[in-house]
């Protein structure tokens, strides 16, 4: 039985009808039409569907849609300020980390949420934080280096949790 679901998506209140068996990824892509989170496996293994839910990275294919009632969901679309990319996005571009780009939206969200928790990580910690995000083009090293560069402030100040929700 479908229900009405209210939550915040990239700072905007949304009201949608969701089915109890739907996951958040499907809701975002099929009901709302926001296709930046990608479906690589639909079983929690690949991380391409990663979004930020109440300041924490989660794999949206494993989150039941109806459980986000009242919560804040952020996708890459919520990180851009007008034409201005988020420091993580700038760094990924600069380092040439994405190749095919399929894993990239998930990588951006996992890295952004991680830096909110740990703004000055070691290389090992970055690798560990991104270990749930598979990149079949094998761009791991560049992704890792790019995140470290952001943590050193090379791409400008990193936003705080409350700021990314607008």
């Amino acid at each position, binding site marked *: 039985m479908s229900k009405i679901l209210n939550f915040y998506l990239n700072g905007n209140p949304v009201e949608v009808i969701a089915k109890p068996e739907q996951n958040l990824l499907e809701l975002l892509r099929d009901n709302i039409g926001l296709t930046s989170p990608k479906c690589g496996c639909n079983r929690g293994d690949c991380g391409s569907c990663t979004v930020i839910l109440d300041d*924490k990275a989660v794999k949206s294919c*494993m989150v*039941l849609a109806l*459980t986000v009632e009242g919560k804040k969901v952020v996708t890459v679309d919520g990180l851009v300020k007008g034409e201005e990319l988020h420091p993580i996005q700038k760094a990924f571009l600069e380092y040439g980390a994405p190749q095919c780009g399929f894993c990239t939206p998930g990588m951006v969200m996992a890295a952004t949420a991680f830096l909110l928790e740990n703004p000055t990580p070691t290389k090992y910690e970055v690798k560990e*934080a991104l270990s749930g*995000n598979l990149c079949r083009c094998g761009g791991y090293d560049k992704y890792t280096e790019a995140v470290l560069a952001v943590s050193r402030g090379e791409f400008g100040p990193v936003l705080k949790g409350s700021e990314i929700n607008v």
Partner: protein
Amino acid sequence: MRSYFYESPSSFEELFQIGKTTSNEVKFLAGGTDFVPRLNYELNEVPKEGQKDLTIISLSKLGLDTISESDEEIKIGSMVTFTEMKKNNIVNKYFPVFEETIKELAGLSVRNVATIGGNIMNASPAADIVPTLMALDAVLVLKGPNGEREICSKDFFKGNGRTVAQEQEVLKEIVIKKQKGTSSFKKLGRRKAETLSVVNAAAYIEKENNICKKARITIGSVAPTVLRCKEVEEALIGKELTDETMKEASLKVIDSISPIDDIRATAWYRKKVSPVMVRRAIKSACDAE
């Protein structure tokens, strides 16, 4: 296709009422990291005929997400996520072995939602928190329509995916006595991160002048449930904890396990590495302060 329903009760009374009045199959939802992928899979399959409708009951509003401490014990609510548990001061003060365990369990974005209760109730032989809980002799509290009952972790699991809990019973909390020994958890996966265990093992050791006074040794992924290794424990108690005795004792684990071939490893390989993982867990527990 069967129909699906979702409920999010804010009290146990409400929850048991739903269970009483429905003829549907009922499933509890914690973090969903086991449940939702299964549901995704089911939805991709050709629907089975004659399947009952499914009511999904979220446990998120029952206040089961707290960790507390008394003089003798700590209590961990079943809905506490691994991320919360890993940074909790009470847990880290008395049982640093949990941080060691959780670090090896899945990846950050899974741990952000996966709960300790879900890991237990899923009753997978490869569940990583279970060997540690059994080594600490944790007690699991079930709450059902007819009241609460406490079950020792070593008697809780009945098979792959099966526990002593009845369909209506919710795992409420996990109670662990404060104790004077030290413990450790070791995991062998197919790769370093975000992978299920090929073999995992945990050890709890109490010693005096390097003589083993008490030992609880557990091993996972080598039988239908996580096991307590009595033979290994007996071989340790009363002995001096040297590399030699640890090695000898660990070899005894072979008698208790019944591993199978699966997608992660062969039974042959599991037999080879089981004593190694047990020995590492014992050694590391002895060295822990």
